[in-house]
Every structure is written in C-alpha cells, then in structure tokens.
C-alpha cells in the first residue's frame, strides 16, 4: 500500500472514530460540568472539572441499587434465554421437522413487531398473574426480546459443529440429550458467550419494558433511573450524563474483555 493510501485510510478511520466517540466525549464533558451549568459551556473543550455529579448520583439516588437491578435482570434474562434458546437452536439445527423454516421466519417477524404494540396486552397479562412491578416480570419481558435472537444465533453455532460428533457421542454411549450436553454445548461455548453478551446488552439497554412494567423506583433498572433525571421540574443533564457513563461502564468493560468473542460470536452465528 502506498503512503498516500495509508494516510487516506487512517484519515477515514479517524473521521469515523470521531463520529463514534464524540457523543461519548460530550457526555463526559457534560458530566464533569457543575450541575445545571452545561448550557454555559463554550467551545468544545471543557473548562471546569468537577466530580460532584458522580458522587451526587450515588448519594442522592439509589444508583447502586439500580445498577445491581440491571445486572440481576440482564444476567437472568440472558441466562434464561440461553438455557431455553440453545436447546431450541440445537433442535432446529439437528432435527428435521415440518415447520422448522416457518418457525425461524416467525421468530424473525415477531422481532419486527414494535414492542409498543404488545406492551398493553403484556401489561394486562402480567397484571393478571401478579408479575407487574416485579423483577421476575421484567426478566420475562426481556426474555421475549432476547430469546428469538438466542435461538437464531445458537442454531448458527450448532450448524457449524459437525453432526458426526453427535453421532460419535451417541455411539460412545450418550443419549441424544447427553450428546448435546457433553459435546455440542461445550463446543458452542464461545458462541454461547457471544449470545450471553448480546442478550445481556439488549436487556441492559431496554427502556420500554422497564418503564412500563415496573414502577417502584427501588425495582427500577438503571436505564429507567437515568431517565428519571429528566424530571418534570428540572432536567439534571449533568447528573444524568454522569449516571449514563457509570451505566455504560460495565458494558464497555465487557466489550473490552470479550471483544474477540463478540466478533467471533458474530462470525459463527451469522456466517453460514
């Protein structure tokens, strides 16, 4: 590659990177501006720094509780979807049965239905069985977002594992179930990790379900908590951005640690 080519490539990367990072940077700038004064910012460089907003969100709001709730809900959602979804993905990958293609398509289509149109029936349903305003209810709601994706992706992963391995395991004394458990599942582990991350992030980010199905602030997830900084009386942008950064931090850490798995997960899940 020529020098000019390299330069152009890096220039383009830098441009894209600016687009990707600037809003984050701006969140940081706002979060470090004294509460209420982000509008008087001048230029694009910060002039005053304060960490007050970060301490206030923990002192004045149950931020720790919210984050903990988010971790619990996202973790459970993801784990449950994995547990249930991988078996379905395996069945779709290994067993020929009528309607398999239709099921896959149906999963995709239901994903497209805006959640706003099922939220009312879901609400009524939850009210009837006492799941409203509970974390369990929120987990179940989130499973409806994550499970179809988990099924789709895990089918992709199992498709990549030669079916001879299952055959060998069954001849070696496994039932179909234990062949799945001892052979297919461990081999799909990197993919399952990727599904877990996708599911976790999806649940972590959800606002609509959190907003509609849970109303007691101590049971809120962090996404809901962050929005509450936009109060009726006052939008505390600075604290809100601080909270948003604190909220994004765990996901950033996950992405840093598991970047390889995320990309490889996408690789095995989507490529063929």
């Amino acid at each position, binding site marked *: 590659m020529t020098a000019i080519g390299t330069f152009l490539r890096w220039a*383009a*990367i830098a441009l894209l990177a600016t687009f990707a*990072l600037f*809003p984050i940077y701006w969140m940081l700038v*706002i979060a470090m501006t004294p509460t209420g004064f982000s509008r008087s*910012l001048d*230029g*694009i460089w910060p002039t005053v720094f304060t960490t007050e907003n970060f301490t206030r969100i923990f002192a004045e709001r149950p931020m720790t509780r919210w984050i903990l709730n988010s971790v619990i809900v996202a973790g459970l959602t993801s784990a449950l979807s994995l*547990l249930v*979804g991988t*078996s*379905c993905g395996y069945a779709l990958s290994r*067993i020929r*049965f009528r309607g398999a293609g239709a099921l896959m*398509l149906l999963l*995709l289509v*239901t*994903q*497209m*239905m*805006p959640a*706003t*149109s*099922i939220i*009312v*029936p*879901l609400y*009524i*349903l939850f009210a009837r069985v006492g799941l409203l305003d509970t974390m369990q209810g929120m987990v179940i*709601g989130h*499973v409806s977002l994550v*499970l*179809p994706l988990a*099924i789709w992706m895990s089918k992709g992963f199992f498709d990549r594992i030669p079916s001879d391995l299952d055959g060998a395991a069954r001849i070696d004394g496994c*039932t179909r*179930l*234990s062949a799945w458990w001892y052979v297919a599942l461990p081999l799909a582990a990197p993919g399952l990790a990727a599904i877990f991350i996708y599911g976790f992030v999806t649940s972590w*980010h959800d*606002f*609509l379900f959190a907003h509609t199905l849970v109303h007691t602030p101590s049971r809120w997830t962090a*996404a809901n908590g*962050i*929005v509450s900084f*936009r109060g009726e009386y006052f939008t505390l*942008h600075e604290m809100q*951005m601080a909270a*948003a950064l604190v*909220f*994004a931090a765990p*996901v*950033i850490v996950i*992405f840093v640690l598991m*970047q390889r798995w995320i*990309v*490889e997960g*996408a*690789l095995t899940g*989507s*490529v*063929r």
Partner: protein
Amino acid sequence: MITPRSRRWVAPGRIGRGWIWFADGPGFPLLMLFPSLIVLGLVIGLPILRAIEMSFDTLNLRRPANNGETGLHNYLRLLADQRAWNALGLSALFMAGSVAGSVGLALAAALLTRRVTRGQALVRLTFLIPWTVPAVVTALVWGVMYDGNFGVVNRMLDSAGLGPGANWLIDRRTALWALLAAQVWNEFPMSFVFLLAGLMAIPTELYESARIDRAGPWSQFRFVTLPQLRPVLAITVVLSMIMGFKAFPIIFVLTGGGPNRATETLTVLTFTTAFRDLDFAYAATLGVLALVVSALMVTGYLRLVARLDDGREVT
C-alpha cells in the same frame, strides 16, 4: 484383548424409561423445543394474539360508551386514516435511512479496519463504543447536542464557518434526518461486528488469486468481497431493518413525533394512540398493521436474497 470391566450402562441423568423417551427417544425434539415454544408462546404469542383480538374490539378509555362492541370498525377506520398511512410511510423512510446509514457506515468501518494490524483491538473498540450506550441515553445526549440555542452541533458548524446551523429537532425539514443520525450512531456498531466477522471469514487466497488476475481494489471488492459477504450482509440488513422499524426511544424522547408529525412513525403513533389517546383497540390495530407490514417486508427481502443467491454462485 481389552474388555471393559463394567457393562453397567449408566447414561447421565438416567432416571427411568419415561425420561429416556425424552432424552434419547421420539420425545427428544419435544424436550428440546418445548421450553422455548412455551416461553415464546407466553411472552410473545399470547400478547400478539391478544393484540389481534383487541383490534376487533372497542377499548377507548376516553370514550368508553361503545366499549365492548366488536367488529371490523378499527380496520375500516385504519383504511381512511391519513395519519396512519403517513406514519407507515415515515416508518419505511426511517427504516430505509437507518439501514442505508448504519450498514453503509458499518461496511466502511469494517473495510477500513480489517487489515489494520497495529492497534487493531483499540480501533475496533472505538467503533463498538456507541453500542454500549442505551437508545434512551443516546436520545438524551443527542438532544443536548442538537439544541438549537446551546447545542455543540451548531457551535461546531459555526466555528467551521458553516453556521448558523439549525433548530434541528423542531424544524420539520431537519428533524427526521437528525433522528436518523442519532439512530445510525447507536445502531451501526452491531452491523459493524457482523460485517467485520463476515470479512474475516473470506479466505485470503481469493484475494491473492484475484490479484494474480490483475483485479484492482474496486474489482476485488466487486467480485470477491461483495459476493462472499452477501449472506452476512443479508442478515445484517435484516437485523438493521428490524431495529430501524422498531426504533422508539430515540424518536419518542427527541421529538415525540413532532414537529407537526414530521417524525411520527408507526411505533410512535401506536404508543401515543394507546397512552395519550387511550384508544387501546385502535393502537392494537396499528400494531397488527405493523406486524403484517414487517412480515411482508422480511419475507419479501429474504425471497429477494434467495433469488439473487440462486442466480449467482455464492460460496
């Protein structure tokens, strides 16, 4: 000669004949499929069925007089409802824009970074970062940036000599595009991951042989990258379509469908019909419209992809 010292066949989890029927017999598909089908049925199927049922009902909390009356009236109203079709059009536009934007940007980012060797992880992480931000927070931060009076977007345009900018979110000429930019920012990392993975899966020999055949960068892209990437690209486009069609927090928080319905997509209209107009039955009808339209779009698109794949040789 080796003989196992135990002929005791203990399959793990063997409890009894009934269990074996599930674990290793005809019941196995049931065992594997049922948990998902039950959960899916409960959390997706049931609400959808209920929504369909509601669409034939009357359930207006504001005007409860006719509640309980059933029939096709919601659908008749839908046919004549200019606002709903306007919303459908905006949804389609928003979806198309977000697919074009996020897949285009993601493809550019993936192509640019795949051969980067130094600082590869860091560069990739950079493009993943917007994914860590929930849509609702995305809306909040872009809202602050877009502010016509104090927003950094206008300030930057100003200092770049492109001022005076605009009142992005309240001007009907700019609002939709402003929302799209925020949506694309939030969604492109997912497409980026998929496309990057797809690019990495293309065997390098193909490029080597293309170079031997004197293919330039464009020809390599056109005749190696694109056909090889097609399956992944198809999935990425579908996912991006789903996200664009479903987009809610960004639109709702930033403009609430305004100004003058310039950004009132079907999702927003469904929400406001339910929670502002309190007409749950008509909201459910709009939801059914969304379901039907999305089903048509996804199947149509997948057919198209399948036909293209039949026409050419792919992998």
